[in-house]
């Protein structure tokens, strides 16, 4: 159940409600949880907290999630974090670009919590 023990998770999303439920649910699963509302804060936390998993929203107020994706991956070159993209954009083009730039999973909003858990679990093991 606590498959996220010893794992650090960073959520970058500007919607406070999303961050709230991610915080509650992922902390219960044993994760060390950090959250950011902007791309800039998110990149800072990537460098300082070296997360294992990054949950990334694309529609960020200061910069598009797709733009910072390669930098998130590069923040820890030896062991890049697993990036799960969460977005309302469900077009094929966005999905392709996200995958190209290193996204490990792509979930379109709205999604159920169990879907997210399954995706992260698969990628971690």
């Amino acid at each position, binding site marked *: 159940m606590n498959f996220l023990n010893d794992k650090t998770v960073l959520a970058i999303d*500007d919607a406070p*409600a999303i961050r*709230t439920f991610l915080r509650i649910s992922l902390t219960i699963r044993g994760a060390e949880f950090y959250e950011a509302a902007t791309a800039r804060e998110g990149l800072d936390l990537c460098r300082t907290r070296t997360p294992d998993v990054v949950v990334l929203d694309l529609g960020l107020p200061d910069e598009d999630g797709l733009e910072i994706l390669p930098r998130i991956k590069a923040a820890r070159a030896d062991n890049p974090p697993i990036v799960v993209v*969460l977005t309302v954009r469900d077009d094929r083009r966005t999905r392709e670009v996200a995958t190209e730039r290193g996204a490990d999973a792509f979930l379109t909003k*709205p999604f159920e919590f169990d879907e997210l858990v399954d995706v992260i679990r698969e990628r971690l093991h």
Partner: protein
Amino acid sequence: MAFDILVCIDGHPKSHLLVEAGLNRARETGLSWCVLYIEQPLESVGSTSRREAMMRLLDRARDEGALIAHLEEPDSGKATLDYIRGCFAGGEPVGHIIVGQHSDTGLAGILDRPLAEKIARRYGRSAQVTIVPLEGHVVKPTLLERLRLGPITWMTFVAPVLAVFCAVMAAEALKASMPLILYKINNHNISLIFLLACVIVALRQGIVAALVASVLSSLVINYAYVIPIYRFNIGSLTDIINIAIFLIAAITVSVLGGHVRASAEGARGREQRSRALYDIARLTADADNVHQALEILDRELSRLFGMDIGFFLAVDAEGSSFEKYPAGLVLPDKDRTALEKCWAENRGTGYGTLFGFGTSWRFEPMTTADRHYGAFGVHVPLRFRLDPAFAKLMAGVADQVAATLERITLANEMSESRFREEREKLRSMLLSSVSHDLKTPLASIIGSLSVLHSLRMAERLTPEQARTLTETALEEAQRLDSFITNILSMTRIESGAVEFAIQAQDPEEPLGRVRKTMKTRLKGREVNVSNEANGRLVHMDSLMTGQVLQNVIDNAVKYSPDRTPIDIRLVAAEGFFEYRIRDHGPGIPDDKLDRVFDKYERLNKSDSQVAGTGLGLAIAKSVMQAQGGDIIVTNHPDGGAEFVLIFPLADGYATSGADTGGNP
């Protein structure tokens, strides 16, 4: 236009005999027939009644089933022969030609074989040629008419007198400057001086004045310079010969001079016309729609032609209907037919063209290399004298107008396609905006509830966490609701389905209601309300105003940092009442101030916290304007954005206290 019998007529008054012969022949044989009428441009100078008679004749012929060929040519004989040759060359099965033989061929008849004989000689073998003798004669324009005499004014007589006087002066000077013997030898120089005077008069004043000068000169020469001087000498043969030679020379020179002058005038006219053609492009350069251009052209071309003109824009490719300009134009049936033919066959039709009899309009198609716009028409007055330049001018003008129309329509099409592009962009923006705004709160709701569901089952949530998740879901659901309400309101307002119930209202009422509804949203915010309206009643729709207030307050919450206060003032001033809602956020960039009320305008396009932005303020604008008020936004001098909802105060002075007092 196949026909078997061809009747050739000109302006002869007995032409009806020929037409009757053609009709009889057509009835006998049951063959089709055609009447060829060559109208000479100068024919209509003298008598309009004769032209009308010809038109009636042609009308009758057409009623009897004849085809009509109505041409405008200066030389009727040549034109007739050309037409017949064209018929045979074009494989026309002309079996019978009926032509008139004028009884008074006069001098021309001696020099040149009459037309009827030429036709009989050339085509007698291939067709049966019937020659009908015609009595009377074609009324030709007189010599005076052909000479294009100008109007006769007092200058017509004063100028020659002055010229002759100058010639006398010059002659006297010549006489005084040389010895008598030599002068007598050079007597003929005097004649040349007077001749020169005549030419000058001809060039300046036209033919009539020149003729006056010629006669005057010959008299003066005879009286003053032919020996014996100071006496009229017409006694001897020599004198008469001298006078005659001088007169002939002077008249010839005068007529030539008059012609030069007339053709110079013609050239000036042509130059004016070509300048007018050039002007069409210049005048319409600023017109940005077809109607504007046509209005200008109508004015200018009416002046150029000195006639009524009209533009007929084809509505469809069949030419079944035309948009007329000026709009009130009504065409007689025959002209209407000519217009349709002009469109269908893409050539000039109507007055003075083939088959153009009975028409009073002349039409010329307005076409460019790849577009057909319709026709340009001129209403030719009955007395109008056709000249060969007319057809050229018509064609030139029609081409220019078509080019102008093409330029304008091309420009409009370009801006229209840009408009479509914009609209398409707006539509896709709306779609992505709506889907984003619907899905973001839904994602929070589904996420929170699914966590609640799966973890509560495992009994791992603390009551505190469970409450947070429930609250989050609830707030987001409310946000979703208000967003959907906004979309529906906007749709209803735009389609005019909203009815406003406007009545006198204490402005604090809707505000209080909204604050209650927005309690969760305003959590952690200080809302400072100051009512400076002194209990004034305001005419408003309470429910709709509440929605405006909610949207504006919601906007203030979204765009200012957490825990900063929101100030709301209710202000009554002379003639109006205002709600002023101010936040303590960063304010609105100056360049975006006037765009915040645009539909779907998002100051921050990827800001998912602010579901429903754009629509909310657009709705606020529509609602306020529907209530006779307005909403504006400014940046407060001390920071933050301030929205002002303005209501007019019609009667202005009633207070809620007075009102309740008066109506217990």
